């Protein structure tokens, strides 16, 4: 219910609302509509033509592949990290909890540089990697590694707060009733965290698809091989092919919108889970 106090001045309210909409329009709506208008300015035919292009298709494939792989690995690592932090006591727990957030505060470009130095041709690891013919930098493994790094906190963060709030008693009850570790996770923990997990997955997907900075350094921009969609957009834009750049942006935009709606839906479920835990 809206508190009465906010209803006192209709004028103030309208001015505030209008200003909010103006800011929202200038910062969000205008750019988004420009993408749509520009991307479709040469007609649907051109739009499709941009994608029929094998270079663009390979960029789309690589983006989807890197996103899928990093989301899967982040789910595994994220659940493991959240489980350790909320279920066990160990030395260095606070350090680990803090470090999980590091990718949020570190610039992605630095991540790119670190990986280039660590796995690139100057690195002492390089001869060893070459022995197994494992090219990391300027190749797909590097892109996936960088994407995992920048998206790591999403799954773990979503889970840790909920799991801390829910506590361990349901798991303890299951253990006392004879359940093994896997049964406890699958029958007791997982149903309690599934919406938070999905929320983490969605956030992770959104970030992974759009990642530019770290991937830009590692990829080497080899068209048709190591270009992701955001990198492809940059290349097209630098080649003064703005319409094609915007056409590809539309695809990223649509994927982002879908994810936004899934996120909204998850958050409602999580609110329910929180209120259950609070009971």
């Amino acid at each position, binding site marked *: 219910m809206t508190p009465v106090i906010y209803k006192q001045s209709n004028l103030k309210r309208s001015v505030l609302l209008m200003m909010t909409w103006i800011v929202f329009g200038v910062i969000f709506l205008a750019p988004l509509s420009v993408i749509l208008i520009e991307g479709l300015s040469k007609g649907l035919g051109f739009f499709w033509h941009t994608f029929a292009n094998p270079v663009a298709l390979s960029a789309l494939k690589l983006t989807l592949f890197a996103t899928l792989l990093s989301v899967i690995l982040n789910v595994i690592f994220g659940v493991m990290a959240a489980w350790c932090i909320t279920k066990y006591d160990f030395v260095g727990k606070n350090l680990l909890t803090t470090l999980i957030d590091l990718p949020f505060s570190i610039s992605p470009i630095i991540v790119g540089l670190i990986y280039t130095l660590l796995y690139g041709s100057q690195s002492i690891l390089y001869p060893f990697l070459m022995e197994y013919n494992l090219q990391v930098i300027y190749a797909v493994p590097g892109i996936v590694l960088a994407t995992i790094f920048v998206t790591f906190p999403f799954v773990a963060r979503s889970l840790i707060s909920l799991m801390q709030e829910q506590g361990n008693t349901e798991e303890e*009850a299951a253990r006392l009733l*004879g359940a093994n570790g896997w049964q406890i996770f699958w029958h007791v923990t997982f149903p309690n965290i599934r919406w938070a997990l999905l929320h983490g997955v969605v956030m992770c997907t959104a970030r992974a698809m759009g990642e530019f900075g770290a991937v830009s350094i590692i990829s080497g921009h080899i068209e048709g091989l190591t270009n992701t969609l955001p990198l492809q957009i940059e290349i097209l834009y630098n080649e003064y092919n703005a319409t094609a750049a915007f056409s590809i942006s539309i695809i990223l935009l649509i994927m982002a919108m879908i994810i936004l709606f899934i996120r909204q839906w998850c958050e409602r479920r999580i609110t329910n889970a929180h209120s259950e835990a609070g009971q």
Partner: protein
Amino acid sequence: MNIRIKELNKYFNQFHVLQNINLDIRKGELIALLGPSGCGKTSLLRIIAGLEQPSSGQIFFNDQDISKKDIRERRIGYMFQHFALFQHMTVLENISFGLRVKPKKERPSASNILAKAEHLLEMVQLGNLANRYPEELSGGQKQRVALARALAIDPSVLLLDEPFSALDTKVRRELRQWLSNLHHEIQLTSVFVTHDQEEAMEIADRVVIMNKGVIEQIGSPKEILDTPKNDFVYHFLGETNHFSVGEQNFTFRPHEIILSIHTEKIGYFEAEAIDIRPLGAVTKIVLKPKDSDYPIEAQVPNTTRDLNNLNKGDKVYFRPIMDFEI
């Protein structure tokens, strides 16, 4: 199953939360671990269950050392303070959980599991709620589901952590009696933790009084009430009055008193009635003794003669009828 706890110690960091605990629990007994919060009673229960590891000492179930045994081999029926029901499972699924997670070769058939769960549901008088979810149940119903779930695995012992504390007073009394009757029926060795001395006295066969990590006294409710071993036990078991006159010290319960409104008899002390509260079967009277600054609480049957003639501010004479020398 009898339980023997031998020289058990537990440290949390520097805190010595359980100090040299020795306790024998007989087969079929209902034992109460009673003490103020922070006395270590819940830690002791959790160690018996295997949820915590003791720092030193041993626990025997039927003369078999289970200190190192995994929680799953102990077959413990455990009821949590807030029940810890599985929120996303129905009542029936909650109760059958312990049977459904058994290894394949020990697991009963699906129809046997269902039959057993339904039998337990009937026993806890919740047959009509099989398909409800925990959030749709009242506190008392949740508690009975938790108990049925614990009993489903045919536990060797039943451990209950503050089983009644999350319930309101009326439900608490009913369930207390019901649990006591159930215990007589199934004769399962049971240990429950409580900070409520009335609860412990009412249903336990023997009471273990704990304070600051040590056991102060073990005995039947009668033994403990009649012959408290020390000051702590005496004070913990109920309201106490202190009164001293000259060299004489008196310590006594509010009901251990005789009042008279008539003038001095031998052994009676003079006081003023500063508050009178009828509480039903008894009436509580607060007295301010003539030569003492500390008020005394007296509880007398409401049938006491002359009680109706007593008013606030009146002179009254009292005599403690039982001394406890400290």
